[in-house]
């Protein structure tokens, strides 16, 4: 079965966006310098940008495998949806939903976290952080989260197109220069929502997984609003403490390898590889659930659950004390 052809040439969206990325980064640097709002550090930026460059190198080397998988699964598609405007609108929403679940599971399961942790490893939050991307995305099988879309019948290149648009959209929200955006905060993923996502504060852990639309977090109970009284601290729960790109890229994979090879039981192997980040057989390490429970105990708040987060978080500054979903950092 021949896949339907796209009615137009699929533009390399990310490549086209690179000049804008560069310009916006330089503008942000100058504004940060003049306004003293936000933070930059040249070694941190060097690491982030090097990770972005490495991501492209690995993309050239292995990205074809993901595309191959898309087309292979597409052969067994349920429907022939083709390239029409209604299908493209549906694909935008479906891709964003797939991104939400990819992103959430990338935080909740260590195997996928090992790739995604790279993006969270900076303790700074600026536009260069957006480009701090994994080198092991394809090898770490992250593309499988989009396979259901092509199985349903969305053309693979349409899925690739909207994935690219989503990534480009997510660039500009990595900034401390933009505060709140009024009613847009209800629907869109914004700098404020994404600052929460990158924060290591206990109340902010495991929240705001959205790509473009924040509605998925509101729907699935993982939305947490930024609280003006608690400034986000960025990075990962166990800060990396290095600017070395190779350590940034592979440290969690090495950690999995060390744990798996020293495991005493098969169940432990599974737990170390696919359990929550921080899982250990004796519970001696911290997971984000245990961090939140400790934090809740210290602050006299009930241990939060996703349903609780859904019920208590608002856009008006998030005064609630415990608004985080279950899962891992």
């Amino acid at each position, binding site marked *: 079965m021949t896949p339907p052809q796209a009615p137009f040439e699929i533009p390399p969206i990310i490549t086209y966006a690179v000049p804008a990325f560069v310009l916006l980064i330089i503008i942000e640097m100058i504004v940060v310098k003049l306004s003293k709002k936000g933070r930059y550090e040249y070694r941190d930026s060097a690491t982030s940008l090097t990770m972005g460059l490495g991501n492209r190198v690995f993309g050239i080397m292995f990205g074809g495998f993901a595309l191959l998988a898309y087309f292979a699964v597409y052969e067994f598609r349920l429907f022939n949806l083709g390239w029409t405007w209604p299908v493209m609108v549906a694909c935008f929403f479906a891709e964003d939903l797939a991104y939400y679940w990819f992103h959430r599971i990338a935080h909740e399961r260590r195997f996928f976290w090992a790739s995604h942790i790279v993006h969270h490893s900076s303790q700074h939050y600026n536009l260069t952080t957006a480009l701090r991307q994994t080198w092991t995305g394809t090898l770490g099988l992250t593309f499988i989260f989009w396979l259901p879309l092509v199985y349903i019948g969305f053309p693979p290149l349409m899925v690739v197109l909207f994935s690219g648009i989503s990534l480009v959209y997510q660039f500009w929200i990595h900034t401390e220069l933009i505060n709140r955006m009024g009613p847009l905060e209800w629907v869109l993923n914004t700098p404020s929502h994404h600052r929460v996502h990158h924060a290591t504060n206990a109340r902010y852990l495991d929240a705001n997984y959205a790509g473009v639309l924040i509605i998925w977090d509101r729907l699935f109970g993982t939305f947490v609003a930024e609280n003006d009284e608690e400034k986000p601290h960025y990075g990962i729960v166990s800060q990396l403490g290095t600017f070395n790109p190779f350590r940034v890229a592979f440290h969690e994979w*090495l950690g999995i390898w060390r744990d798996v090879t020293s495991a005493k039981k098969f169940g432990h192997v599974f737990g170390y590889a696919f359990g929550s980040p921080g899982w250990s057989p004796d519970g001696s390490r911290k997971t984000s659930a245990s961090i939140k429970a400790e934090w809740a105990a210290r602050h006299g708040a009930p241990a939060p659950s996703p349903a609780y987060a859904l019920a208590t978080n608002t856009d008006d500054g998030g005064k609630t004390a415990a608004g985080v979903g279950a899962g891992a950092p």
Partner: protein
Amino acid sequence: MQFENPFGVAEIIELGGSAAVVLLMVGVAAVLGFRMSARIDDSELARLAEADGARVDCAVISQNGRAAFARLSDGRVMVARVMGADVSARFAAAKAVSLNVKAQRLNATFADVGFPPLKMRIDDSPAWLNDFSGGGGST
């Protein structure tokens, strides 16, 4: 099945151009003076420990104020490093740390392979550091 070299001329040009742009942006950041370095002192260590539900029992801070090694009230150790404008704190079980102090140089390695070794110059070597020499604290 034959695998082709994925790096053609176009890819090499793209990557070369990207590398040049990376250098440009890092250069701009350096020229604009984004070399802020936080400094670690006792109050910063206390804040970091408190954020993890512990207190600092004793600590050594490097001569340049960019790194520190502390023993906490719950028996764990905390390693702090300046990371640009921020300070990175990492907590570990005492038994997961191996320390070596020679001629005002402290070298610490960690069982956690993801965590880089700590190397710092210190003014003096308090006796409690001996608990960690050769791997593992007294607690």
